[in-house]
Every structure is written in C-alpha cells, then in structure tokens.
C-alpha cells in the first residue's frame, strides 16, 4: 500500500508532497486526536471543499496512508484506528469495484455518503459547541443578584436531596457487600496455631501416653466438622512439637489411635 501510494504521490507533483508532509505532522499529533473520526475530519478539511463534496475515496486513501506510515515509524495506534483502517479499506474496494448485483448490503456510495454525513455532523456539532460557549454567560458576562434577599425567618424546615444523592445512596447500599474485606468464616476452623498454643500449655501434664482424641478442646467433640478440624490441627501441632523435641508420638498399627506424651529431658 505504501509503495503504490507513494509512487502515485510522486507522479502527482508538489501538491502531494505538501500533503504528505501534512500527514507526517498528523502522525506526530496522533495523541491530540479524539479518535479516528476526529482524524478523518481533519483529513477531510485538507481537501478544502464543502464537507458534502469531499472525496471519500481520497480521504480513505489518506487515512490508510497515515496508518501505514505510523506503522513504518513504529508508532502504536489504538485499536479503533486500526478498525477504522480495515473498514476504510473495505469501503475503498467497494468504491473501486463495480457493484455486485447479488450483494444485498448498502452500496459503496451509500457507505461513503454515511461517512461524509457523520463527518459533517461532527463538524456541525463542534461549531455549535463553539457558538454556545461564545454566548454571554452567567457569572462572566451577565450576572445574577449579588445580594439575594432570601432571609431565613420562618421555622419551617425543608429537607433537600438531589437525584444524585438518591442514586449514590442506592449504589452505596447495593455495593456495600462487595466492599467488605474478605474474611473467612472461621468459627468452625481450629487452626494449627491455636492447637500449638494450647498443646504447649498442656504438654507438661502429659507424662503418660494419651490418645490424640483426649487433646481436643472443649466444644469441638460433637459437631463432625469442628471435630475434624480440631483433630487435624492437633495432629499437625503434635508433629511440630515432636520435631521440636518436646513430644513423643506413636501409633501401634495403621488406623490405630495416635498417642502422644511429653518427651522426658535427659537432665
């Protein structure tokens, strides 16, 4: 594309050189554009004709050239610029090829007309915005009463709230749960830290072999979930204490009760 375009450019003389320079400048400014439509509008203006008479084909070529050069200069273009490029390439083929009678979709001319319309509408809105802002504005050119006399004398209280308050209030309630810090439901979990802490305190009294079951804390025997959690924690804690040399642990056979006792110090 670049090649074919630039050869074409070269053939067309100094006007096109100027145009190319302008396009290079566009690439430098790409951050200044509010999306592809904005850029297209700028390109359309280079044709210096009524927006209704612009050559969409020429504009499409300019845009595609712009995208190609941006690529060559390794400038990252946002995705919507590339989407527009793809669409313009499609439009261009539609405009250049003879219409396919079996095709149901809008013709190339119709698509081009719509694009031209969009540009004209955007341009018109910008102009309207400028006219609006150029009006005499309150607080700048026209003024309200500086000393309003709405003195507060009666006792009647009127409460005010804005729609924004209302919506934000609702939003606050409906999203409250999602802001709750993540906490695990722990009332049925006995942690190894808790088990360690507890066993360290009780270890001194365990001179004889006792089954691990007997070490379960008060209230953790009956509910199976709690019992399982406490047993696991106690078992892990006893392994840890054994490793530290504070406890001895034994099991006579597979699935037999596990027993522990204090490790006697060789004093």
């Amino acid at each position, binding site marked *: 594309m670049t090649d074919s375009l630039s050869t074409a450019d070269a053939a067309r003389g100094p006007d096109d050189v100027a145009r190319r320079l302008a396009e290079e400048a566009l690439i430098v400014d790409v951050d200044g554009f509010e999306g592809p439509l904005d850029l297209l509008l700028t390109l359309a203006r280079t044709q210096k004709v009524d927006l209704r008479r612009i050559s969409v084909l020429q504009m499409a070529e300019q845009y595609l050239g712009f995208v190609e050069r941006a690529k060559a200069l390794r400038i990252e273009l946002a995705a919507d610029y590339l989407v527009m490029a793809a669409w313009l390439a499609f439009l261009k083929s539609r405009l250049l090829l003879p219409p396919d009678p079996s095709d149901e979709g809008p013709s190339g001319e119709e698509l081009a007309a719509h694009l031209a*319309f969009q540009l004209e509408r955007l341009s018109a809105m910008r102009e*309207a915005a400028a006219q609006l802002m150029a009006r*005499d504005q309150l607080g700048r050119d026209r003024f309200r009463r500086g000393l309003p006399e709405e003195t507060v004398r009666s006792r009647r209280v009127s409460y005010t709230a804005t729609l924004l308050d209302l919506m934000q209030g609702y939003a606050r309630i409906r999203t409250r749960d999602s802001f709750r810090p993540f906490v695990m439901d722990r009332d049925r979990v006995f942690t190894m830290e808790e088990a360690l802490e507890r066993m360290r305190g009780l270890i001194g009294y365990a001179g004889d072999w006792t089954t691990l079951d007997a070490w379960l804390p008060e209230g953790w025997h009956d509910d199976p979930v709690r019992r399982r959690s406490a047993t696991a924690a106690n078992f892990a804690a006893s392994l840890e204490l054994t490793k530290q040399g504070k406890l001895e642990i034994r099991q006579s056979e597979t699935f037999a009760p596990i027993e522990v006792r204090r490790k006697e110090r060789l004093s």
Partner: protein
Amino acid sequence: MTDETTTEVDTPRESLFEAPPLAEQERMIEAMLFASAEPLSLPEMAARMPHGCDPAEALVLLRRRYEGRGVNVVRAGDRWAIRTASDLGFLMRQEAVETRRLSRAAIETLAIVAYHQPVTRAEIEEIRGVAVSKGTVDQLIEMGWLKLGRRRMTPGRPVTFVTTTEFLDHFGLESARDLPGLAELRAAGLLESRPPGAFGTSVAEGEEEAEGDIDQSEMFDE
C-alpha cells in the same frame, strides 16, 4: 402556564379581598425577581402573591419596563429572572466567578445533548465517534446543566439526557429552541441519525445504528 396559575388562583375569587391592582402586582413581581438569585416560575410567584393575582400579565409589563435598562427581565425555560445586561459585563469583573474550565469533550457533549435532546449515551458516542468518558456526563450533571430525561422506549430502555433550566439561564437562552443555528442544523438534516434520503439498512458501525434509527425518528416526530 397562565392557565396553570389561574386555575390555582381561581377558587379564591370569592375571597373577601379583591386582587391588588396590576401596577401593584408588577411591583410584587419586581421585588420577588430582584430578591431571588435563581429564576422563579409563574406558579412560584403566584403562590407568594395575594389571592387573585396574575403574575403572567404583570410580568409582561415588568419585562417591557426593563427593556434597555442596566438589568433585564429574562426568561429561562418556564422561569424568569433579572440579570444584568450583557453589554455591562465589564463593570462586574469583581463579581465574576471563576468557572471550571470544561474539557473539549465536555463542551462537545453538552452541545450534543442540547441540540439532540433527549439523547442517550450511545447516541452521544455515535456522534463524537469516541466513548464518552465516565466523568464527563457526571460533571455536567453536577454543574446542574444536564439531567436525566425519560427512558427511551427501545430495547434496554436506556436513560436519556436533557438540559436544565440552569443551562438555559447560564447561556441566556429562553428555551432550547433558541439554541444558535438550531433551525439551520435541522434543515440540513444534521440532527438526524443518517443522511437525508439515505438507505434504511444498518451500516458500518453496526448494532447501535438500527436502534439509533428508531430513537431518532421517535425524537423528531414532534
């Protein structure tokens, strides 16, 4: 509007007191409009006046009285206010309030809502060709220039945005119909969703188009 007031005030016609003379009513309206920083509606004025008063009639007199003066009686939608004449703005530099500078996106969004109202977010985006950032509409609502309009009766029932009385007051417009260039834009078909006499089927940008179609025709069917 006049009707509204009269019906409201009609019943007490059997009141013991006669309505004050028109000149007196004019004085009352003058006092109320001078005292209030915000525009007042006719019903609001009527509610504060003695029974039997017709603020609409007195307002016509008052408005004429202030023509060409240093302050004028101006209309903003269905409300009225006294504002300084705009050619005297230079005297009030002390009073000038530093208004928040609006971004280009905000200014364009405001204009699009003003000229196309009621308009949905999708329609604003379709016209600008870019997504409307979250803060933009929010900022304009907070400034009191935009508010929610009725929902569009299309799939998804999107909310629409419209301009407020404050917007009219700020830009010195009697009504949204007085927006600069509105008639020309409409005549040129630039307030429609597609070029005049265009094909009906959906195009390039896709999905919203079809929906936009319904929206727009609904919108300008008045």
